[in-house]
């Protein structure tokens, strides 16, 4: 048995060695254009979407080649600004091009190719990366260097309202799959020269850009250093979504709670950066990551700050209540109805007992069946096309609830409990935190069925132990409750008036702790 495993492992290691040998890109660039083109064609096995255009530079006998990938580039730009200029504009230059290829290349860069984004590469590896990521490459016969001309242009989705984080008040633009659009969004929010974007390449094969953003002078350098360190450990072949990055760099993969916030809203990232957090944007993913995160931040929404403080505060209080109900309501119902009926007012107890008459199952089975049905409905509603999804939610909920009650499978009170639980869990602004609480609900229901209130309070204690032990980038998940930063409590359950929020979150230990200067005080 073990021998089989060992042999298997040896075989896999052998395969790995072969693969890593066959992907050695450290080939130098040839002097001859023809050879280079051949070489690139060979590497990629001459696909249809590879454009290779070889032609002679006007007034010289040097040939050059433009290589790019169809679909990833802006063809108008290549035709008008590169090929046409090289073919025509060269003849309009003051003095004719010299015969040295290096000088020709420099002249082309300086005077002919009229594109803003231009750089040079020396190795085939860089050239291949440039081609594959949508840049255009210009080879000149005999030159050591290669011009890399930025002309990315592909079909992408326009800026739309964030789907998962809709707000009543606040900017309606959301991130898209285009990295540059996303960074531009953040720049549009923060015209701060200290806003830093650091680019990392992640994924051995996908080689996607991952941008680390922070505001120098606000953020704690130790935090940035730690995020950098964790990003550098990423060793995946493909990173299709920022969720991969999140799972790789988070502190504990055993915890049900998200330790990094993800958001589709540029304003949320910008606010986080100004608070002294660090953001990550992955190419191809409309979800940016913001870290570190605490439990409290999963119950906060940008809207709390956009609306006036009384509204913001009451919404926050409401959400804390919602989080409690989403986690504990079904188990409280189970515990009270099966262990402590004396604790509910007798009239209510009688009506509950009366409505449960004829229901063949104990309360816990009833609750489980209904909660599972609800989760199924929720999941189905997401998968179905949008217009149908909404109707299936309402219709399915109503019909199943009504039918289950009249069929005598569940009691009407149970339907109310399940409905309130569901509504509460959807009221939470963070989808993944809401899911975490919804998941916890099931074991707590079991415990409540065996140990009643005693079990519920012990599970509550256990969740708190877990939260106090959990960390997100060095910050305990329970901050600012404990370790308590009383100054941060002004923006916790209650959102104090804007003029009172004079400092950045103390827990982030920012370099620049003040948010407001003299302007915030009455003159």
């Amino acid at each position: 048995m073990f021998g089989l495993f060992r042999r298997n492992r040896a075989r896999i290691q052998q395969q790995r060695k072969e693969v890593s040998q066959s992907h050695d890109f450290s080939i130098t660039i040839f002097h001859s254009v023809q050879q280079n083109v051949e070489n690139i064609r060979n590497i990629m096995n001459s696909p249809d979407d590879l454009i290779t255009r070889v032609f002679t530079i006007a007034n010289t006998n040097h040939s050059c080649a433009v290589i790019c990938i169809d679909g990833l580039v802006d063809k108008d730009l290549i035709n008008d600004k590169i090929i046409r200029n090289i073919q025509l504009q060269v003849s309009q230059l003051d003095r004719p091009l010299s015969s040295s290829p290096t000088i020709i290349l420099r002249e082309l860069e300086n005077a002919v190719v009229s594109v803003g984004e231009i750089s040079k590469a020396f190795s085939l590896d860089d050239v291949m990366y440039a081609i594959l990521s949508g840049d255009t490459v210009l080879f000149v016969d005999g030159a050591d260097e290669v011009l890399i001309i930025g002309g990315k242009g592909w079909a992408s989705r326009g800026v739309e309202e964030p789907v998962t984080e809709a707000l009543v008040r606040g900017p309606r633009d959301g991130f898209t799959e285009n990295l540059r659009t996303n960074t531009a969004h953040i720049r549009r929010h923060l015209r701060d020269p200290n806003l830093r974007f650091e680019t990392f390449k992640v994924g051995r094969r996908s080689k996607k850009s991952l941008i680390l953003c922070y505001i120098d002078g606000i953020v704690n350098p130790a935090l940035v250093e730690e995020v950098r360190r964790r990003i550098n450990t990423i060793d995946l072949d493909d990173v299709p979504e920022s969720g991969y990055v999140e799972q790789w760099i988070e502190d504990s993969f055993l915890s049900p709670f998200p330790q990094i916030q993800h958001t589709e809203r540029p304003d949320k990232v910008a606010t986080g950066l100004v608070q002294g957090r660090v953001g990550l944007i992955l190419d191809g993913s409309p979800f940016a990551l913001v870290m570190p995160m605490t439990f409290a931040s999963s119950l906060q929404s940008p809207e709390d700050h956009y609306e006036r403080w009384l509204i913001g505060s009451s919404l926050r209080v409401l959400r804390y209540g919602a989080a409690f109900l989403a986690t504990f309501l079904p188990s409280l119902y189970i515990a009270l109805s099966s262990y402590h009926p004396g604790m509910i007012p007798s009239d209510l107890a009688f009506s509950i007992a009366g409505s449960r008459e004829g229901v063949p199952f104990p309360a816990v089975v009833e609750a489980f069946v209904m909660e599972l049905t609800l989760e199924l409905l929720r999941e189905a509603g997401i998968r179905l096309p949008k217009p149908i999804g909404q109707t299936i939610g309402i219709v399915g909920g109503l019909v199943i609830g009504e039918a289950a009650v009249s069929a005598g499978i569940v009691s009407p009170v149970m339907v109310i409990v399940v409905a309130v639980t569901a509504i509460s869990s959807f009221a939470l602004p963070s989808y993944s935190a809401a899911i975490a609480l919804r998941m916890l609900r099931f074991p707590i229901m079991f415990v409540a069925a065996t140990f009643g209130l005693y079990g519920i309070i012990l599970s509550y204690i256990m969740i708190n132990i877990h939260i106090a032990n959990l960390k997100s980038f060095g910050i305990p998940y329970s901050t600012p409750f404990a370790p308590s930063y009383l100054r941060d409590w002004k923006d916790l359950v209650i959102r104090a008036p804007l003029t009172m929020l004079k400092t950045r979150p103390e827990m982030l230990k920012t370099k620049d702790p003040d948010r407001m200067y003299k302007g915030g005080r009455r003159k």
Partner: protein
Amino acid sequence: MKAFHYGDEEISNKEILISVTTMIIGAGILTLPRGVAQSTRGLDGLMAIVAGGVIAMFFAWICAKLSSRFPRQTFMQYSIRLVTKPIAVVITALFGFYFLLFTAYEMRIVATISKVYLFDQTPVEVLGLIFLLVVVYSVSGSRAAILRINLMFAPIVLFIAIAVVLMNLGYFEAENLRPFFTTNWKGYFQATKETSFSFAGYEILLFYVALSNQPEKAPSAAIIGVSLPLALYVLIYVIVIGVFAPESTAQMIHPTIEVAKEVEVPGQFFERFESIFFTIWIMTLFNTAAMALDLSIMCLKFLWPKIKKIIFISVLSPVTYLVGMLPENQLAMFKLGNFISYAGIGFAVLIPTLLLIIAKVRGVKGHA
């Protein structure tokens, strides 16, 4: 991912303060009014409570002073410097044993009272076991987290205690408080002894101040930490005596829970408030039990530094469970409680005082 120390594992004096409060109020508050009312008349017990509180404040100050004299040194380290290694080992071992008994007793109290107020059929053994499992889960985590949980639970617990006091104001009868000053000296003495037991728990300062990031401010934190339970005890005692009168208070096993029973929640939203009160109170009992077990492990770890924490936990938890289940009935349980209280007085009063005197006399200081 590897742990990253952004802030440190250090804890502030806020945690120390609240931990002292939590450790003191623990289970003591549930029985305190009975013990005091048994030997005093009218509201005279209040003086005993205040006296007990002031005494406790003084000795808590001594504990904090002693350990803040040796900043960032563990109890074992500085006691070795004060009284040779063999004696320090004995003291530490005794502390370890004491905290183990404390955990066991706390677990038993939770199980017994839960059986009375929440369940009548589930056996005490099972209730105790799952409580202990939660405590073990907490102790397996980081030490700072244990102290942080105190901070998270304290507001809820204090809120429910204040709620009990406020909601009972309607049943308060001033007549029950009289007559004043009719207790004899013996009664006062007896009651003060009783309250001193309820104030035990500040000995944790000897161990936890080493974790504080501002040890020099620990003594004042200790005093505030004791004054919070003092205020709470005074409130609870006044309300219990005002509602029940001393004679009947003396007959109740858990007068504080009984007084919660009187509460009627406005709006009739739920009944039997005492169940809710005790359910919430389990949080405090959990906190004290977790701290005690943690300290017990800490003491053993001083003695055998090379053994892993998980091994101590897996050895200590069955022992704790067995000790906790040993008393056969309520009476035997209270005997265990009394024994722990006497031991606690010894550990919280005698040892720190002696050590501080030795430190003063020999002039031993922090970084020698």
